[in-house]
């Protein structure tokens, strides 16, 4: 019991005094996940909008492929990325394995289907007549697209939040492609697993608190966004 109480007390000391190791891990975690989210945002919103607004052969198949991607286990993504980046793998020459870049790649693969899928869903929820209304106000095709995305910005933000929430708390792929190297690729989740298994609860709890706060903020933002977009 003492050990645990002690751990909790120490964790709050680490949090209060801003322990450098703790801050380094949290900063890397944020940098990697925000980077991956930004890439997913650009790729996912663009492709999601294209898929949501147009009709083409195989559209249903593509959408169900994206939905499958939303539910595929991160460890499998980690396995595939590891194989691709393995020193004598197809992209091994780039020397990316066990670097933050590899983690960004894996996290983009995890979050891209989420952002794309959410984007398609939110675009399909908008009244299809809104497109006609915007066109009838004299918008060119490009102006229409821009105004239309502006209208769906709240659900799109929700898409981005959901993607970020998924990868910031992901552990398998980050461990596999990052290698959990202290000071280089150690992120919140991998550090918590490692410190916990070493019985180093103080740091683990401190990192857990940071992770929880981040996830909580994302969830809260998501809830507010969803309520605001429903209120319309």
């Amino acid at each position, binding site marked *: 019991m003492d050990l645990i109480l002690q751990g909790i007390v120490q964790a709050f000391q680490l949090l209060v005094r801003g322990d450098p190791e703790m801050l380094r891990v949290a900063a890397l975690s944020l940098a990697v996940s925000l980077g991956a989210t930004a890439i997913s945002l650009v790729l996912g919103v663009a492709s999601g909008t294209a898929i949501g607004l147009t009709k083409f052969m195989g559209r249903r198949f593509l959408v169900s492929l994206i939905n499958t991607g939303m539910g595929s286990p991160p460890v499998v993504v980690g396995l595939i990325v590891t194989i691709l980046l393995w020193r004598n793998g197809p992209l091994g020459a780039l020397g990316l394995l066990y670097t933050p870049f590899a983690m960004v790649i894996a996290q983009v693969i995890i979050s891209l289907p989420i952002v794309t899928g959410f984007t398609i869903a939110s675009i399909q929820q908008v009244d299809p007549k*809104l497109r*006609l209304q*915007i*066109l*009838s*106000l*004299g918008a060119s095709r490009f102006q229409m697209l821009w*105004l239309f995305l502006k*209208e769906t910005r709240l659900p799109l933000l929700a898409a981005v939040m959901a993607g970020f929430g998924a990868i910031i708390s992901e552990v398998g792929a980050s461990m596999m492609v990052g290698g959990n190297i202290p000071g280089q690729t150690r992120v919140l989740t991998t550090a918590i697993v490692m410190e916990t298994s070493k019985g180093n609860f103080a740091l683990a709890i401190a990192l857990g608190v940071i992770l929880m706060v981040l996830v909580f903020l994302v969830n809260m933002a998501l809830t507010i966004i969803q309520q605001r977009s429903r209120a*319309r």
Partner: protein
Amino acid sequence: MSQDHIMLEARDLSVVLGGHEVIAIPSLTVMSNEVLGIIGPNGSGKTTLLLSLALLLRPAGGSILYQGQPVANGVAALRLRRRFAVVFQETLLLSGSVWDNVTLGLHLRGVGKEETVARARKWLARFGIAALAKRQARTLSGGEAKRVSLARAFVLQPEVLFLDEPFTALDSPTRQALLDDFESVLRETRVTTVMVTHDRNEAIVLADRVAVLMDGRIRQVGTPEEVFSYPVDEEVARFVEAGNVLRGVVSAQSGGLATVAVGDHHFDAVSDLAVGTRVTLFLRHEDVTLTLPPTQSALTSARNRLVGKVVKVFPLGSQVRLTVDCGFPLVALVTRRSAEEMELILGKTVHATFKATAVHVLRE
């Protein structure tokens, strides 16, 4: 612009949705400065026709002509679309303030700031929503939002205005106030207007001509008087709930009973509108009773009495539709048995009576 100038024309128009031809119209014209009402039952293709005319839906066949010129695609179509404005049944306001919404179309056209401000101010004021300019569009009530969507269309000073059931889904007082404002704007601007509606009264009050659309086909085009008094066939008659449409002015008013002057005639009707108000009277065919003269001028509670000659007899199964020329044509629907007993044939002189309570008075 002269009244007899063709603004918009559809030729051999065919629209296919989901494998079905939902619109098949050999010809339909919209004249300059007229209000063309399109009426028809649900699912008859009214909105689809409107969208095609407004260049928002590509037809499968045929062409749309604007001032005699066929409409091309691409940039040319955009340039034309910018001479049009559309108001949908749903208000479809964008997020942002009322001002943002009303000025959006002008921004899209690259109109200068000064002119934008002037025009937006004018039309916000014209629709009585100047005070709402800074409000977020999504916080508006249904009636307010509808006013914004109308101002957003008129601020564009369109050459053709398209309206898709604009006054549906509003409660009755809101609707009446908005109809009044809209009508005076329409009379003032004389903008060429195509309006889809399922409300007979709206069509009678607002439209110069009415087109009846059923199953994607135009069944009848004419003035409201023609269409509502003389539907071409039983199906149209049943849909429009045929009746006499008379235009006049309130000439006397006494405690809820108005006297309306229609040409040389004066009719009593239940209405509290003030003297001088221009009104349209609507009287169902079956509410007109025909009696053979010489009839004693007995006092009757049927306050309105006219003498005329039967000029048209149109049998409709167990009933007969008769047109009586009383200085103006008045249509009555009587049973076949009555028509036979009274020998109601062409040229017969009859008395037509109807009760003041049977007359529906619509403010024009």
